[in-house]
C-alpha cells in the first residue's frame, strides 16, 4: 500500500528523518509513536507530498508521490497537526471546497459531504463559521475533510489533541470504524491511545525507526522482566529480613510507602519462578499483614522509554569506555562517579524529549574532558 524507502529529510544541518524504511499494508491501523521532535510530523508531511524528501522515495500504491503526485494524492486523506481550516468559511462551504479540490464528481458531492458530517457529528454546526467553533469541533471538521471522498489511506497527525475525554473516545471509535474500509495511519505521543487503537506500532526516535511490531509483541520483547510489588504492615528492616528468607528472588528494593508503619517493596523474581504464593505464606507465618501484592507487567510505556531513551545511553557509555582505556587507573573512580551521575540525570529526565537526553550525555562528556585537564 505505502512503501517508504530510505527516507532522509535534512533541515540545514539538522537531520529530521534519518534513513527511514517501512511498508504499510492495507486494512490495518498503524500508529506512529515517538517523543516530541522525533520526526513523526515530518515523515507524514513527506508521505502526503507536502514536503519534499532530501533522499529516498515514497510509493503510494506503486505511484511515486513526487513523480505522479496527482495519482498518489488522490488515494490519501490527510489531517495535519493543525487542521487546515479557512476561518472565514462555514463548515459546509469548507467541506464543499475540499470536495471540489479532491475532485469528487458534482452529483456525488452533497451526498458525500452529508455522510462525513454525520460520521464526525458536525451536522448541527454546518451553517456556522469555522472561526466561531471550539477546538474540538475544528478538529472534527479537519477530520471530516480528511475522510471526505473515502480515500484508501487516511493519515491523521495527532488526531485527539485538544479534545475532551468524551470526544477522544468518540474519535477512537470513529478511527476503528474507518479501519474497516481504509488503511489508517495516526501519530501520537500518547501511548494509551496508540495501544488501544492501533494494530501495529512504529516507534520513531530522532528520525530513526527503532521498533515496529504489534503492541503485544513489543511488550513481549521485554516480557520476562516482570516485577512484583508488595506492601506490608511492618518496618522496612523487618520486611527486608522476611523477603531474604524467600527463595527464588533475584533482587529486592524496599522503601517507605506513603502510610505510616507500612513498607513497600519491589521484587524481581528469578527467571521462570513464581514467588507470589511463597511471599504470601512467609509473611503470614511471621504474622505480618500483607496489604497489597500485585504483578506489574512490562507496559508499552516501558518499551517506549527503553527504545527512545536507551538508544542514546549505550552510545554515551561506549564513548566513555573508549576513553577509559586510555585513562590511568586512578582516574577510574571519577569516571564511575560521572557515570552514576549520568544515570541519575537520565532517570530524572525520563519524560523529557530524547534530544534533551542527548544534550545531557554530550554535556557530561565535556565536563569530563575538563576534568582530565
Amino acid at each position, binding site marked *: 500500500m505505502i512503501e517508504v524507502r530510505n527516507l532522509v529529510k535534512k533541515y540545514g544541518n539538522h537531520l529530521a528523518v534519518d534513513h527511514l524504511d517501512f511498508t504499510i499494508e492495507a486494512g490495518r491501523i498503524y500508529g506512529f509513536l515517538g517523543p516530541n521532535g522525533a520526526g513523526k510530523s515530518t515523515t507524514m508531511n513527506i508521505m502526503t507530498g507536502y*514536503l519534499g524528501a532530501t533522499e529516498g522515495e515514497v510509493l503510494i500504491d506503486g505511484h511515486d508521490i513526487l513523480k505522479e503526485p496527482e495519482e498518489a494524492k488522490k488515494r490519501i486523506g490527510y489531517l*495535519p497537526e493543525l487542521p487546515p481550516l479557512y*476561518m472565514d468559511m462555514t463548515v459546509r462551504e469548507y467541506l464543499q471546497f*475540499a470536495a471540489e479540490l479532491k475532485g469528487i464528481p458534482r452529483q456525488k458531492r452533497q451526498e458525500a459531504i452529508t455522510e462525513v458530517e454525520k460520521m464526525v457529528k458536525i451536522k448541527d454546526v454546518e451553517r456556522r463559521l469555522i472561526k466561531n467553533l471550539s477546538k474540538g469541533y475544528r478538529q472534527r471538521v479537519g477530520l471530516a475533510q480528511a475522510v471526505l471522498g473515502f480515500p484508501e489511506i487516511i493519515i491523521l497527525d495527532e488526531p485527539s489533541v485538544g479534545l475532551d475525554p468524551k470526544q477522544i473516545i468518540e474519535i477512537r471509535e470513529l478511527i476503528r470504524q474507518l479501519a474497516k474500509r481504509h488503511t489508517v495511519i495516526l501519530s501520537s505521543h500518547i501511548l494509551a491511545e496508540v495501544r488501544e487503537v492501533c494494530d501495529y506500532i512504529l516507534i520513531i526516535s530522532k528520525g530513526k525507526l527503532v521498533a515496529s511490531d504489534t503492541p503485544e509483541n513489543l511488550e513481549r520483547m521485554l516480557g520476562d522482566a516482570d516485577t512484583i510489588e508488595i506492601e506490608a504492615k511492618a518496618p522496612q528492616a523487618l520486611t527486608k529480613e522476611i523477603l531474604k528468607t524467600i527463595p527464588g528472588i533475584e533482587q529486592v528494593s524496599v522503601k517507605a510507602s506513603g502510610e505510616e508503619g507500612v513498607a513497600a517493596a519491589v521484587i524481581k523474581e528469578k527467571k521462570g519462578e513464581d514467588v507470589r504464593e511463597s511471599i504470601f505464606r512467609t509473611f503470614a507465618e511471621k504474622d505480618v499483614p500483607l496489604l497489597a501484592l500485585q504483578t506489574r507487567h512490562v507496559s508499552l510505556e516501558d518499551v517506549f522509554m527503553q527504545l527512545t531513551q536507551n538508544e542514546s545511553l549505550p552510545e554515551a557509555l561506549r564513548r566513555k569506555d573508549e576513553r577509559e582505556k586510555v585513562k590511568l587507573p586512578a582516574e577510574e573512580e571519577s569516571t564511575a562517579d560521572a557515570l552514576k551521575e549520568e544515570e541519575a540525570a537520565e532517570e530524572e529526565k525520563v519524560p523529557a524529549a530524547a534530544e534533551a537526553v542527548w544534550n545531557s550525555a554530550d554535556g557530561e562528556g565535556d565536563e569530563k574532558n575538563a576534568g582530565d585537564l
Partner: protein
Amino acid sequence: MLAIYKRELKSYFQSMTGCVFIAFLLVFTGIYFMAYNLTAGYPYFSYTLSGSLIVFIVGIPLITMRSFSEERKNKTDQLLLTAPVSLGKVVMGKYLAMATVIAIPNVIFCLYPLIIKSQGTAYLEVDYISIAVFFLLGCVYAAIGMFLSSLTESQIIAFISTFGILLVLYLWDGLLSMLPSSAAGGLAGVLILLTIAVFYIWRMTENIVLSGAVEIAGAAVSIVLYFVKQSLYENLLTDVLGKLALANVFTDISNNSIVDVTGIVLYLSVIAVFVFLTVQAIQKRRWS
C-alpha cells in the same frame, strides 16, 4: 483550479478587501472623471485613467498581500498542497481570482466613455484600448505582488514590499534621469549589473569557480567592447533600464494615443515570468 478560483473570489468579497479595493479605485477615478472630463471638458477618458494609476500602487498590494502569506501562516497550504491538484493550478486559480477582482472596476470604467459621448465628442477606440491596457497593467502588478506574497509569511511584509516595488516602478522614469548618459558611465553600470548577477549565481550554486569565470569573462567582453565601439555605451543604461518602466506602455496610450504592441507583449511576458516564479518559490520551500 476552479475550486480554488471560486473560493478565493468569494473570500475577497467576504473579507471586504475586494470591496474596499473596488470602491477605492472607483471613488478616485470618479473624482478625476469629474475634474478632467465633466468640469474641464477634456474628451479623453484615458487621461483620467492615468491619474488613477497611483491608486493601483496602493490598491494592488491590498489584494495580493494575503494570497500566499496567509495560507502559509495558517497552514492551510497543507490542504492545497496535499490535494490532488498540481501547484501550477493552485497558483493560477489564485491569480485568476485576483485578475477578476481587478477586472470588475475596469468593466465599470467602460461606462465612462459613453457618458462622455452622450455629452459630445468621445474617442471610444483610444478609451477602450486604454482601459484594457490599464487592466493588463493591474494584472502585471498583481503577478509581482503574488510573487512577493509567496516569499513571506507576513501579510504586512508582503504589502510593504509590493508597495515599495510598485512605487519604484512608478517613479522609474524620474530615477532614470539621474543615471549618467556618457559611455564610461554606461560601462560602470554594466559592470555593476554583471557583478550583481554573478553574486546571485554564486548564492544559488555556491560554485566559486563558475561564478568567478562568469564575472571575469563578462567584464573582459564589456571592457573590450568599450574600447572597440564606444558609442554602444552611450545612453545604454537609460535605454535598457528604461524598459522596466512598465507604466510607460500605458501612459503612451493615455497621453499620446500611441499603442505599442511590443509593450503589451512585455506585459504578458512579465505576468508569465512572475506566475512561474511564484510556483518556483513555493516549490523551493517544500525542499528546503
